[in-house]
């Protein structure tokens, strides 16, 4: 029950973010689903293996796959689903923790937090780029076959 509630939070969080970023009304639900996909993957892997960076990478891949497929179905840019979908797993909190540790003069903790933050951001970006490059490759090879 608790897990289902946690998953629901990912859905709601992404949906609210999509409203604040002025997404069109008909896409709210799909943005929420994008968040749900990423959050389920991230949460499950993170709680089972406690490897945050790996979990972030796999979550990013899941969100990116969902977004690229959805973008083709809904005929909108994939970014819309991507940005709202990665919102729950994005390392914003890590960046905040880093600054707070610096302010509290806890420099070794700041170093750890800062490293995790940049590693998570890098993992996210790499996950997204991997998937979107793959889809671009498929796109261009399809076009070549047509002509």
């Amino acid at each position, binding site marked *: 029950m608790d897990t289902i509630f*946690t998953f629901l*939070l*990912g859905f*709601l*969080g992404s949906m*609210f*973010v*999509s*409203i*604040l*970023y*002025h*997404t*069109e009304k008909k896409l709210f639900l799909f943005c929420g689903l994008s968040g749900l996909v990423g959050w389920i993957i991230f949460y499950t892997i993170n709680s089972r293996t406690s490897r945050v960076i790996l979990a972030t990478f796999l979550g990013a891949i899941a969100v990116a796959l969902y977004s690229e497929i959805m973008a083709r179905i809904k*005929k*909108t*840019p994939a*970014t*819309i689903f991507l*940005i709202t979908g*990665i*919102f*729950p797993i*994005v*390392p*914003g*909190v*890590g*960046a*905040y923790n*880093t*600054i*707070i540790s*610096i*302010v*509290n003069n806890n420099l070794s903790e700041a170093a750890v937090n800062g490293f995790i*933050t*940049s590693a998570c*951001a*890098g993992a*996210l*970006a*790499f996950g*997204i*780029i991997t998937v979107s490059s793959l889809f671009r490759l498929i796109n261009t090879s399809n076009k070549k076959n047509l002509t």
Partner: protein
Amino acid sequence: MKTSDIALLAQKAGELLIKSGAEIYRVEETINRICSAYGACGDAFALPTGIFITVKGKCGDTITLTVRIKERVNDFSKISKVNNFSRTVSKSPMSFGEAMECLISIEEEKHYPTAIRAIVSGAAASVFSLMFGGGFTEAMIALLSGSLIFIVINNIRHILTNQIFEYLISGILCGIIVLIAGKIFPQLYAYSIIIGSVMMQLPGVAITNGIRDGISGDIVSAIARILEALLWVTALGTGVAVVLIFR
């Protein structure tokens, strides 16, 4: 169509995209697509803070335009509409007047009402505070502070000289609310309230986008975005920490 008109159209579309928080490659692609739709050759160099466009017309005349962009907000419906516009144009080019009218109507499109956005940002704050280990009380306080921060920032944004102040003030507000709430409910898990209420301002997405830009080859905008994100989170964290010293 005149080369200068093509350049104006491309400039408008690119400006709209950057102002709505689109990725750099999409901006440059859109500009090139619009130019080639009208038979001109366009070359664009986009940054998060400005665009340079050069359009070479059919008769060999060249026009260069520069746009400076000061403010960016995330607005996905504009990105998707400009994207559709560029696709329509490249399939069936319309006249300059029509196309410009189309872009201006996209630019002037209204956002959702402020009241709804305030409530939604409160709701988002409570969801994220639950996600980071808060309970029911924490979620309710985050709901209040999320909405309050949104309303205050929305009302004082026009008098602030730069965006960093906005983040500093959000941080200070959030700190004050946590301080007061801590006096009333001593058992509170303050961290979850703070994270929830400032989650919308935390630059996690900005850092990720910066690295994405870097991987796709836009090194300059990657550095610009990451630096901007670092400044934001520093301002935010400083705001919170300065107030919480008095706890």
